[in-house]
């Protein structure tokens, strides 16, 4: 696996907040414990990535998909996460859809304007042509 991500720890403040909210009120967490959990989280990301990637490669795909990540949860013995993840995914997809619609609407509004109001050849840019999944180049 890749080297230890000492420089790529997740933001301590956010880790601390999640920890605090997951525990009963009045419970404290030592700084060492917080650091330990943050470090564990970084390792978890690497492990999760690796498992997901294995699933993608098994299926002869080069792109890690959302389904690969969900499948990896089972491999990693975190089945309990699958349902909540699926629910979050629905919310995310809905938000993505709304975002795309908003962009399309803005484009429409621009094209309704007079041509001299718009710079020649200008484009909203960033509009991805992928259908369902948008891809991030990790190479």
């Amino acid at each position: 696996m890749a080297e230890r991500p000492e420089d790529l720890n997740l933001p301590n403040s956010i880790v601390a907040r999640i920890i605090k909210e997951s525990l009963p009120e009045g419970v404290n967490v030592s700084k060492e414990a917080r650091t330990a959990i943050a470090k564990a989280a970084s390792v978890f990301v690497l492990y999760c990535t690796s498992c997901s990637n294995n699933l993608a490669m098994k299926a002869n795909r080069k792109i890690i998909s959302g389904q690969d990540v969900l499948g990896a949860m089972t491999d990693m013995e975190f089945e309990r996460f699958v349902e909540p993840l699926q629910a979050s995914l629905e919310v995310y997809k809905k938000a993505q859809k709304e975002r795309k619609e908003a962009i399309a609407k803005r484009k429409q509004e621009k094209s309704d304007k007079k041509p001299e109001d718009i710079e020649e050849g200008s484009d909203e840019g960033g509009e991805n042509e992928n259908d369902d999944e948008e891809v991030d180049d990790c190479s």
Partner: protein
Amino acid sequence: MDQMEENEIELETVVLDDTADEILPPSTEKIATTNIEEANKVEKIVRFPVTRIKHLVKMDPDVNLCSQEALFLITKTTEFFVECLSKEAYSYTSQSKKKTVQKRDVEQAIDAVDALAFLEGVLDS
């Protein structure tokens, strides 16, 4: 903050809270929209910065491409993981009748839970 509790997992709903600004920096993803506000709206569904997670994902030499959806799921599941590990650690804290979770409690949780076996040795620095 509006939260739903499902068994042990807390599912964060999409609610704008006053910490919204801290949640994520403007997205720098290629896929990101020209409108940063809209990008932030999506990313408020997660707390961790997706870009930071993306850097971690990129560290794996075998990984070529990762869909935006997969990145989101990895980010989200890491949040669940933090909750899960915290609660496991706390079970040892409360067993010792303490009110402060110590590193030792986290280590005990790692030793006890099979699913956390991948963390063995990680905390030894």
